[in-house]
């Protein structure tokens, strides 16, 4: 399964689903990471984690570990 954590800087993908649970899932949904939205990786922090992504016209940062819970369409 392809997830957001597999993408490289500059690449983008379409969200298929979220496998996170509880507060993290809720936060993802509230921040607009829902099915069908396009996300792109803008940058990676100097120490290799977290990543900065762009979606719905704004920027969000999250850890790779969390990004792995966001499944992308093939």
């Amino acid at each position, binding site marked *: 399964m392809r997830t957001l954590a597999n993408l490289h800087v500059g690449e983008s993908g379409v969200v298929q689903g979220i496998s996170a649970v509880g507060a*993290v899932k*809720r936060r993802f949904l509230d921040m607009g990471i829902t*099915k069908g939205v396009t996300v792109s990786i803008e940058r990676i*922090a*100097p120490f290799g984690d977290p990543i900065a992504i762009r979606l719905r016209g704004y920027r*969000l940062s999250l*850890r790779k570990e969390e990004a792995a819970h966001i499944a992308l369409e093939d």
Partner: protein
Amino acid sequence: MDKKRTLAIIGNPNSGKTTLFNRLTGSNQHVGNWPGVTVDRKTGTIHYKDRAVDVVDLPGIYSLSPYTQEEIIAREYVLSDELDGILNIVDASNLERNLYLTMQLIALGLPMVVALNFIDDVEQLDIHIDCDALSERLGVRVFPVSARRGIGMDELLRAVTGEMRPPLRQPPYLHGVGAAISRTAELLRPTGLRECSLPFYAHKLLEGDSRAQTRLDLDPAVRAEIEQISAALSSHDNSADKEMILADALYDYLERMVTAAVHHPEKPVETITDKIDRIIINKWLALPIFIAIMCVMFWCTFGPIGSTLGGWMEVLVQEKIGVLLEHALVAAGTSDWVVNLVCDGIIGGVGGVLVFLPQIVILFFFLSVLEDTGYLARIAFIMDTLLRRIGLSGRSFVPMLMGFGCTTPAVMAARTMENEKDRRMTIMLTPFMSCGAKLPVYSLIAGAIFGAYAGLAVICLYLFGIVMAVFAGFLLKKTVFRGVSSGFVLELPPYRLPTFKGTVLNMWEKAKDFITKAGTVIFVMSVVIWLLQNFTPTFAVAVSSADSILGVIGRVIAPIFKPLGFGTWEAAVSLLTGLVAKEAVVSTMSVLYGTGGNLSMLSGLLTGVLTPASACSMLVFILLYMPCISAFATIKREMGGWRWAIGAAVFQTVLAWLAAFVVYHAALLLI
């Protein structure tokens, strides 16, 4: 006359809420606390012509989910009966996500208007927003404004002080969700809930929100029926997750609305934020820039500027006010002990703390600017990986770093952290960063015992403090703060210039906070310690500190330090007075050993009292044991209770004792 109406300003973080609040209320505002929590509660009054409306500034939230402390407060408040209307502030440059909260607020059915902020920024990017189309689709009035520049304020003021109306309609959610919500709302009608908030509860119940379920305490038959509706809720992907279906439906609806109302230029203009971020969080430049900014901040706060202002404050309090007060009291014929209490105890204690005021104001100037510009979020982004190893997040970095200057403002700086668990843990670990006041103590003891190697010993102590913070972090993560981490999902907001008024107001609030604390908790503690120092257990005036209650306590607790190699009553008393201010350890020692201001004599005496091993152990204990009363009082305030503050102090002191014990015995073996 009618009862004055109360509005709430609600919006996402970084939507310019505070600027709008300041703009609307002018100086008519009051900062308090929400009951039981440390989140600020700001209230004010809006005056327009002859009309007046009270407003409450709710914490910035992304949604009405009951997860963070801010969300719970905002949600409880909007569901209470105190509220007559909502002023929803929306960031025009980030419409989709901001309107997500707007839709949830519309579901509450309260009278409401939307202020579309940063309209000037959007226009600069050649983006046009059709406010009438938005109004039409949302069913609430939308006003384009720029709170920073004061654009559109007149219309907004007229609207919020005049007659406000509830949303014209509820959103026709997609994927059949709308029908499920209205059917559930019908079922809730007999519960006696406020009619207009039924759609909100319906939405939350379908989602399976446990807080809403507990609050309503529904009839089992009704609950079963709602579960049926929920189960039948069809979605466009046949997913069984109700939370996801509802969020999808809402965002799909918003996407269509925003596409219809917003006109982008053919070729998107690169925003200033994009340009700045290309440099500021660049892979290679991010760290050097970050270090440079931190150095400037520290240099200004603890360097010449801060210490000069602090020096002036000291002169003002000790020499001007102190002397004046002494003369006045003597002239009024007050007895000696009262003069002594006021001048030595209170002026010494409270004044000693007030010396930090200029540094705190400067530090908060920087923090406020860093936060308002959006750089604080970038710091968290840059430093997160290093800090999460000890169970903290990138947000903890600034408070921890400030701990090397002074623990008190460092603990206050932890307020910028949104996650409650991270914040508490940061507060508990910050005191392990050796504050500036510990340095004279280190210098004295290390200088006396280690001679030429004193500098090295002091550096080792600083490093040891960091190592202990890492260790204590692991320990706390495995015990008190166990559980799932809430993750690190952080918005990187656009860079924006802070407003002068906002920055000044912020600094003033912090200063007021600090002065209030100095006038209450620290005042009481100073009096208590003075009494202990100047009276014998039989309440006669103590001739020397050795006879005082403090001296007696010192003798009682001295055996505790025996296993650490420094079980003398002088050491015990010095450590106790170190609670007033860490540097007091030095002055107390000089009093107890009768060396006066002669530090080299004191140093010589210490050589006879301490061995290298016991000096190591004493230094470690001083490094780690509970912070001074000023920091302790701040921790109590920020943690929201004595239980936490005392818990933290006990944790730190026990850890200090154990570490000193290990160090002492290891040193005995090695040396």
